[in-house]
């Protein structure tokens, strides 16, 4: 039971990150490595704010915007300075490592005693039997909120234009809009979600760790592709929902691998191999054409 709860907790926390990757990888069709830096950025900002006594919810919101800034920087490097997308992401990711340390103060910062969204007076009043669902009780509404917000956004005028970036970039130009600016917007949104995910993880695990972001991109990608592939036949399910479920399935696979005796140290290797297998199974490897957003 605790294992199952753990899978759902982790799956939901990383689902927020996977939604960000869905924006870059599927909607923009742009591989963004910034996320390996913006995930711990969210964590660092959130931990620093909580130590400074800022409200945990407000800390999450500010962390989101820290990620937005990171995404904008990657976007400007890529779009305005003309550096290739992967390299732009790597540059910002590398720079963020130092920035994160500067924000957090050192490479490992605990917030064990602090009040967080998962650890506060309100939740302490829960009946004893509910206590183990405490984290899920907080996470589910947050993830649903993110999903609905993203879904709604994709159906706005701005969202429609964003969706056309990966679909037919040329068309945006003929709509008299600069596709580059839309890419920056998409990168900003995506990294905002990734940083938010990092901030939620920091509050749940109660610490910041400089290497928290390693492998974020690969992990997120695996979740996105698992979700979209596994639920491809279910036309009525929205893509963000598929991505969220994909994240949970991914965490379940990893948990199963560990239960089968693979050491936690080989986690990254498992992820890498898993991603390769998924990419090989799905014939294009790349983009599943987005058919429906509702």
């Amino acid at each position, binding site marked *: 039971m605790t294992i199952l709860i753990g899978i759902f907790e982790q799956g939901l926390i990383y689902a927020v990150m996977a939604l960000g990757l869905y924006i870059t990888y599927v909607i923009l069709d742009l591989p963004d490595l910034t996320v390996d830096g913006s995930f711990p950025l969210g964590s660092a900002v959130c931990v620093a704010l909580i130590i400074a006594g800022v409200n945990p919810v407000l800390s999450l919101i500010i962390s989101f915007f820290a990620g937005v800034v990171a995404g904008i920087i990657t976007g400007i490097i890529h779009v305005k300075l003309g550096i290739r997308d992967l390299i732009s992401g790597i540059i910002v990711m590398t720079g963020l490592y130092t920035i994160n340390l500067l924000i957090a103060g050192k490479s490992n910062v605990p917030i064990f005693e602090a009040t967080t969204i998962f650890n506060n007076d309100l939740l302490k009043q829960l009946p004893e039997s509910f206590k183990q669902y405490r984290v899920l009780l907080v996470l589910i509404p947050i993830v649903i909120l993110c999903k609905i917000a993203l879904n709604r956004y994709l159906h706005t005028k701005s969202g429609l234009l964003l*969706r*056309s970036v990966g679909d037919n970039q040329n068309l945006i130009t003929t709509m*008299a809009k*600069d596709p580059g600016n839309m890419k920056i917007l998409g990168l900003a949104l995506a990294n905002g979600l990734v940083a938010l995910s990092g901030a939620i993880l920091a509050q749940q695990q109660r610490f910041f760790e400089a290497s928290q972001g390693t492998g974020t991109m690969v992990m997120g990608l695996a979740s996105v592709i698992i979700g979209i592939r596994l639920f491809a036949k279910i036309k009525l399910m929205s893509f963000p929902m598929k991505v969220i479920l994909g994240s949970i399935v991914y965490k379940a696979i990893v948990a199963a691998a560990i239960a089968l005796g693979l050491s936690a140290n080989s986690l990254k290797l498992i992820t890498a191999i898993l991603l390769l297998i998924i990419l090989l199974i799905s014939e294009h490897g790349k983009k599943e054409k987005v058919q429906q957003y509702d």
Partner: protein
Amino acid sequence: MLKLENINKCYNPGTVNENTIFQDFNLSIPSGQFMTIIGSNGSGKTSMLNLICGNIKPDQGKIVMDEENMTNMSEHARYKRMGRVFQDPAAGTCPSMTLLENLSLADNKNKAWNLTKAVNNQRIEFYQEKLKRVGLGLENKLDEIVGSFSGGERQAVALLMATITPIDYLILDEHTAALDPKAAETIMQLTAEIIEEQNLTTLMVTHNLKYALEYGDRLIMMHKGEILLDAFDQEKSQLILNDLLNKFFEISIEVGNAI
């Protein structure tokens, strides 16, 4: 009035692939004119359209639209007043979106891209009316994904999308070339109707000599970045297929190969 003045353009200068396509190229198209453009492969037709649309920049010379020098204007800014349909039907639509979403996208050109709903249900009737005119039954396919449409259907949608908002210039680059004859005919008729109705200044590159003669009020023939033949109103209407074929024949002897 659209003017190309003293244009020089060379691709890949200073390399083995150096290719000077335009040298002191001049062309002016008065407002409301419908010009058809023919010419052998590689004669610079697409390059000329790309220069006008800002997809490529001239090395020298000016591009002027209604007295405004737009040589250095960004590509997307030029499309505020222009629409373009490409040869590839996939180029003018978003394949993963529904027809309704595609039309809504095009309908919002030059308006605010804000956080209001993308699809305005009150416009559906207007879209359906436009689609009915095409005669392909598209009005019943509003909720279908455009990626599943045939080439002719997609090109019809692309044409409607390019012209759904008020524009002044329409740029067509062999937009019927990838279609079967029947679909090409449908698209060509629709094109002519829209141009007439909206009084669009039009440049239409076509491989179809019949279309080049039948439609429009001016015809130019290009070869190696130069205009070999330029026939207006009266003169154009007297042109016959044989004139064009003879001209093509001359060129092909000159360059020593068949067209």
